[in-house]
């Protein structure tokens, strides 16, 4: 079949045979290689999943059981929940089983079984808590666990591989097909491509507003750099454009060097910045793990040789010490049977211990010496404030920022400054907090005695989030301290001090 599909193309006068589509696809998905990449992915992703699920294990009764408050993903789609829900004890057992299987997957003990159990339970628990567990990096993790459970990722760097090595005469690492690595690569490509679509559908992404508000949220982990960068909207707009270009280019350029190196380096920088500016802690390691799939076994072998050369002196030093040979070669059948038996015992005892531990933690304080918890009465003042009718929005709360400079870039003030000379134009920009009504917004230039020197008024319709006012500084402008004042509905909401320099007038 592959022979039949072989095409011919003209290259000058010479006909060059092209491989058929079937053979290209076959080579892409079924080339055999040492599965270094997916073994690393297995170890990293399972460890990250354990870190994610660790704190949730302590609250599993509350998050995932009928003895708590599950928030199934189906509710968000106005559909009935189709997932079975269990009581707290069973959930504690399942959550413990998931944690154990994530661990055994990471170390590669009964890898396929471990990964299958981990993938099912991880997806199940994610779907049961859409509010505080299900996120996009959880979705990526479920894809990875699902694909790995079918793969040969346990053939190297695993307990399984070590046990096999015990009775193998071949010192070469085992090989597997590349299809899992390819699917993970394509997952990453589709993920970035889809993310680019989202941004295209979100006009406020390109104006920088979405990212600015995200950088200023307190809903993610502490990210002080985000607040600083939120002060520079032109930078955010530029970063937004770079991001979308990179996301679209990624699936096209990541397959071969030098595009691969460039795309992955930008990716690493991008995700590191999402940690520092947006407070995303688990997203970066999940993506970094998948970046490893863009390297084949030869790349890893080259890296291994490089390290071996660098570490040679240290290895020579270590080899001076005679180490006892600790490897004991057991019969194959005994190793296989005991491994499965031990694995089953490990799962059972671990799960039982987990159930016991969770019970003793007494999440709801039902067995406390002082009795069950009681609801705390609200302070009267607090209750009155909370339950009062909605207070009218203060005019000052409709203003997001007030910046002054001399030019705009990306629709934002490019140079924040307070000193101005003749020939320059003061650009005063006020940004609003959406949603807001149609507003009359006024900008006053006032002198040192607070006398009105100049005034501009604009209507700011509800769809407008920025308003700009320009005050040209001429040779007749009075020098000295001034102030720019923003008024909404006639009420002063912001004021900024500036200084106008005019040497010609000052000399008189």
């Amino acid at each position, binding site marked *: 079949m592959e022979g039949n599909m072989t095409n011919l193309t003209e290259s000058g006068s010479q006909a060059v045979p092209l491989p058929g589509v079937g053979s290209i696809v076959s080579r892409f998905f079924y080339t055999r290689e040492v599965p270094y990449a997916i073994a690393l992915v297995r170890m990293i992703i399972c460890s990250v999943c354990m870190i994610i699920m660790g704190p949730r294990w302590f609250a599993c009764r509350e998050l995932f059981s009928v003895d708590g408050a599950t928030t199934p*993903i189906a509710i968000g789609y106005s559909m009935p929940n189709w997932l079975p829900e269990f009581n707290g004890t069973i959930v504690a057992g399942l959550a413990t089983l998931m944690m154990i299987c994530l661990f055994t997957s990471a170390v590669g003990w009964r890898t396929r079984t471990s990964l299958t159990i981990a993938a099912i339970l991880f997806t199940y628990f994610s779907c049961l808590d859409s509010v505080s567990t299900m996120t996009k990096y959880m979705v990526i993790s479920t894809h990875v666990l699902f694909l790995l459970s079918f793969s040969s990722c346990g053939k190297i760097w695993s307990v399984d591989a070590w046990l096999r090595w015990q009775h193998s005469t071949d010192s070469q690492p085992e090989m597997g097909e590349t299809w899992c690595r390819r699917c993970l690569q394509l997952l990453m490509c589709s993920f970035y491509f889809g993310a680019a679509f989202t941004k295209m559908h979100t006009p406020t992404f390109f104006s920088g507003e979405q990212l600015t508000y995200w950088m200023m949220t307190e809903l993610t982990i502490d990210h002080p750099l985000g607040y600083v960068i939120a002060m520079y909207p032109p930078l955010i707009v530029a970063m937004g454009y770079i991001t979308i270009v990179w996301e679209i280019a990624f699936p096209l350029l990541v397959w071969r060097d030098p595009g691969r190196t460039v795309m992955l380096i930008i990716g690493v920088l991008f995700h590191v910045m999402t940690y520092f500016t947006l407070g995303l802690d688990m997203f970066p390691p999940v993506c970094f793990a998948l970046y490893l799939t863009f390297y084949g076994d030869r790349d890893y072998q080259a890296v291994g040789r490089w390290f071996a050369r660098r570490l040679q002196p240290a290895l020579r030093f270590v080899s001076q010490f005679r180490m006892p040979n600790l490897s004991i070669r057991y019969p194959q059948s005994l190793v296989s049977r005991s491994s499965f038996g031990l694995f089953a015992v490990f799962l059972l005892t671990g799960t039982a211990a987990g159930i016991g531990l969770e019970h003793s933690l007494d999440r709801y304080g039902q067995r406390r010496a002082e009795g069950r918890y*009681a609801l705390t009465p609200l302070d009267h003042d607090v209750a009155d404030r909370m339950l009062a009718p*909605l*207070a009218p929005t203060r005019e000052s709360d409709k203003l997001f920022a007030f910046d002054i400079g001399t030019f705009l870039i990306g629709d934002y003030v490019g140079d924040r400054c307070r000193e101005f000379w003749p020939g320059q134009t003061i650009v005063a920009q006020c940004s609003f907090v959406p949603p807001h009504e149609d507003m009359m917004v006024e900008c006053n230039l006032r002198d040192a005695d607070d006398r009105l020197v100049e005034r501009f008024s604009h209507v700011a319709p*509800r769809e407008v989030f920025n308003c700009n006012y320009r005050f040209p500084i001429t040779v007749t402008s009075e020098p000295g301290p001034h102030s720019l004042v923003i008024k909404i509905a006639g009420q002063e909401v*912001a004021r900024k001090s500036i200084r106008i320099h005019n040497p010609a007038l000052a000399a008189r």
Partner: protein
Amino acid sequence: MRWIKHLLIGTYLLALSAGIVDHGLKFGTNSHPLMYFIVWDMYCGWSAHECRIHLVAEGESGTHYEVLPPPWGDFAPFGTVGRQHYDTVHNSIHRMGLNVLKQTDHEPIVRLKVIEESWPKKYNLPEHLWAARFEEPREPQSYFWNSEVFDGEGKIINSVPVYLTQLYNQAIGSNPRLAADARKHQSFIAINPAHRRAAFAGHADAISQPQAGPPGNSN
């Protein structure tokens, strides 16, 4: 075995492609929870307001109690903020509240009230950055908005738009001609209290709302 691998790879790539196409064409992206697994729609729903959700219970005596955060402590899934604050569309807040009622001692509860507390995000700026950007003192004010009321068993009694939609409706409603036009319709009684939201929130789609499914915690 090879055909099983073909099938697996083919199905998987088809699913990824379907997600991309659906998302690109905005077709059926919220049709089924499984779409969440193949549609990569991060970055939705970040507004200019920071919002916290309080659940207040009213006892038979008229006393109000704090239900969330629960007395045994908050579960903070992505930082330091409690779980209930991520339920931005209030789909599950009453379930969390009912669980707290089930696990605690209290007088009979007649009402559960969902209170949104919001403030502009500019007040989240640390002091030194505020001082660099504003000459005015930092005087944050929270706005409280009672968006839902449930009875003691979790049945919905009243539901109005969430705070952001309410702000948008107010902005629209400040146009007298539009407000007069909006009154020119046939009156009806919404039998299901949940449908009252639809009667009040005709403009909800027009503004940036969190999409269906899990909230915009796209991390």
